[in-house]
């Protein structure tokens, strides 16, 4: 997939953070982060543990309000919006630690996302089982994410790999323009990881993706561009090749890993 990279002028930033700061009671976790995500790209965020990757996700998706700075999505300032507003703006996210509805079936899990997508929130006049469109759409998504066979199994009873699929599926079912995946392959074996990466590629076709990932093979096979986060600040942004050859990145992070 060839595209213009990193020269700002010709491509459109769908998501941008401007001088983003965040601290927890004096502990600086994010420090002057200026992330730029172009429309349609797959953008990986890498960095050692504690670099602030998940915090960056949490600040962007509304878990926390940043201490300072702005978050711009599609030219709109979404700084300080709550998680539900962020989703309605068109940003979906998945979680590093599986965060599904464990006591509901896979079908019911996805159905909630479908309700959200259709904007059905306070409907108390129709039986949900009689809403054909909702059921068909849910089944379609279940087939699409490869969980149709498991539709009547409770999410908490799925195998780990399937739970991860459901986790990503929940983020994608609301049909967001920007998908933020927090370590989608966390805890997977080599084979599972390979399958998961192929799946993510297939499912996010045509969408903008921001992904946190530790596995460098995954990062280099998935990402169009990479941002390296280190001690809460951006060390470098660029194509996989640029990042691989960047001396500062090598010193801080990659070198240690490839030895």
């Amino acid at each position, binding site marked *: 997939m060839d595209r213009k990279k990193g020269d700002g002028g010709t491509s459109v930033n769908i998501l941008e953070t401007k001088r983003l700061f965040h601290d927890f009671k004096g502990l600086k976790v994010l420090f002057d982060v200026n992330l730029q995500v172009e429309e349609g790209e797959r953008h990986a965020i890498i960095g050692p543990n504690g670099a602030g990757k998940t915090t960056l996700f949490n600040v962007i998706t509304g878990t926390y309000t940043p201490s300072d700075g702005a978050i711009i999505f599609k030219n709109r300032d979404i700084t300080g919006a709550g998680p539900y507003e962020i*989703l309605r703006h068109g940003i979906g996210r998945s979680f590093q630690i599986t965060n599904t509805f464990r006591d509901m079936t896979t079908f019911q899990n996805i*159905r909630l996302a479908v309700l959200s997508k259709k904007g059905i929130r*306070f409907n*108390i*006049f129709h039986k949900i089982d009689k809403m054909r469109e909702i059921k068909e759409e849910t089944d379609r998504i279940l087939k699409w994410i490869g969980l149709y066979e498991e539709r009547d199994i409770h999410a908490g009873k799925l195998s780990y790999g399937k739970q991860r699929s459901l986790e990503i599926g929940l983020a994608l079912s609301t049909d967001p323009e920007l998908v933020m995946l927090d370590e989608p392959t966390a805890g997977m074996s080599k084979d599972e990881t390979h399958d998961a990466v192929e799946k993510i590629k297939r499912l996010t076709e045509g969408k903008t993706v921001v992904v946190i990932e530790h596995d460098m093979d995954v990062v280099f096979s998935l990402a169009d561009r990479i941002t390296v986060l280190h001690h809460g600040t951006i060390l470098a942004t660029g194509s996989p090749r640029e990042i691989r050859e960047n001396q500062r990145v090598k010193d801080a992070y990659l070198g240690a890993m490839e030895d």
Partner: protein
Amino acid sequence: MNRKVKWGLLGAGFVFLALYPHVFGIYFSNFFITFAIVALFAVSYNLLLGYTGLLSFGHAIFFGAGGYGTALALEHIKGLPLIPALLIGIFSAAFLALILCPIVARVKDAAFAMLHLAFNYIMYVMVLKLRNITGGEDGIAGYNIPSLSIPGIVCFDMTNPVSFFYFAVVILGLGIWLAWFLTKTPFGQIIVGIRDNDMRVDYMGFRVVPTKAVVYIFSAAFAGLAGSMSALFQNMIAAEGSVDIAHAFQPILATIVGGASSFFGPIAGAGIFAILEELTSRFTERVELVNGIVLIVVIMYFPSGFIGLVRFIRKKMLSKWIEKRAMEELP
């Protein structure tokens, strides 16, 4: 269960209830109404506990609001018809919930439970102390129970126990059906999502606090209906049996013993306690002692309640049946 069986059962239930007062007499008709009031109260409670995952130790405030709302309206408004009196009870409870929901919809777990214990106690003391309004410990009694009349067509005398039985069964049945319907709607699914994982519900584009507030108000309205029916049925309302702490625990007992995981669990629980209390009160006044023991046994041995037990047995029987079939089919 297929459609025919469902309609058949519904029809049988209808016939049973139609004949009930004539077969079992006034005493057991009143027994049934008492049970149905507790059942609706418990069902309203389970909208919070079983469906939304909110444990409340003070659901009696809404029962009391409904009961006192109807009783006070009937006492002070001359010629108030029956249905408006009922609606006043329901709206009193819903209004109380509307006042409380900005606070309580933002909390959960222990905070939700303890806040309600406090609210319940405040209401109990207020009912006792505001004597000139509530009649204090004596409560309000002897107000006129209006007839159910559609002018020019029919008029049912509600002081006639048989007429009242039919009225109560229809209204309480309607209340339970509405609550059941609510759980089957998209909204009913979203509250289950909140019970399961409220944080993810937020990330999926639903507003958690308003959703909880709405289910809270509905739950209160149904509890208010139960309280209002109680006031009409007893022709009196007092602090004891409406807003006291023991009464706040009645729906909790029924829900846990019946099974919170099913819509019909609380109804089963209400039935179990109705029968149990009827039987134990013939031998001893210490009804609560027996109720408490039953609760402990259920929590220790069948934590999913009566419905859970039924499901377990059904599953066992089903798997046995499948095994048998498999054996027979072997060549």
